[in-house]
């Protein structure tokens, strides 16, 4: 990150603490996002869906499991592409 270089030395530790806090919050946020996303995709409750029981069906459970795994792999892949894109952009600027 370019703007890190501009921070005076005595403030760099504060910035790194901020990054750490941010990572923690983001992990929790990601958890909530993941649950909502996979529920949306996998669980169909309502007049057209599974009204019968309060428990997740076998299909819903395996769907959620697959959904979670796929999302994690997607997150990795997107992160990789982001780094790649940023590297390409850096090359373009002399």
């Amino acid at each position: 990150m370019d703007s890190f270089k501009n921070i005076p030395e005595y403030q760099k530790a504060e910035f790194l603490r901020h990054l750490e806090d941010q990572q923690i919050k983001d992990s929790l946020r990601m958890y909530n996002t993941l649950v909502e996303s996979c529920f949306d995709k996998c669980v169909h409750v309502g007049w057209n869906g599974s009204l019968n029981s309060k428990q997740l069906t076998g299909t819903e459970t395996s769907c959620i499991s697959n959904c979670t795994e796929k999302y994690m792999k997607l997150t990795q892949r997107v992160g990789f592409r982001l780094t790649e894109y940023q590297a390409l952009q850096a090359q373009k600027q002399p």
Partner: protein
Amino acid sequence: NNKNNKMSNFFGSGPSGPSPLTVAKAEAEILMDMFNRMTLTCSKKCIVTHNEPDLTVGEMACIDRCSYKYLEAQDKVGKLLADFQEQLKRQEAAGLQSYGPPIPK
């Protein structure tokens, strides 16, 4: 070097602008927010079936395309926004009326 720092498009750099620490913190947060949005958007567009835990070849290709397009779109929007703000500043300096969000001074 300021060309690489996209945040300088939105904030001023120099004595009248925010401190480098503030800018760095904001940039870190924006980057994370952007990554989260990109991930969610691409997951909605690319992952449709959940029959297996692995990504299919098609899904992987879709994710790659989606990521790059998203980033390119973001750059375009950023440039357009910066141009528009420049235009507003020029109009304001010329004493012309300008409609739109207030520009921080």
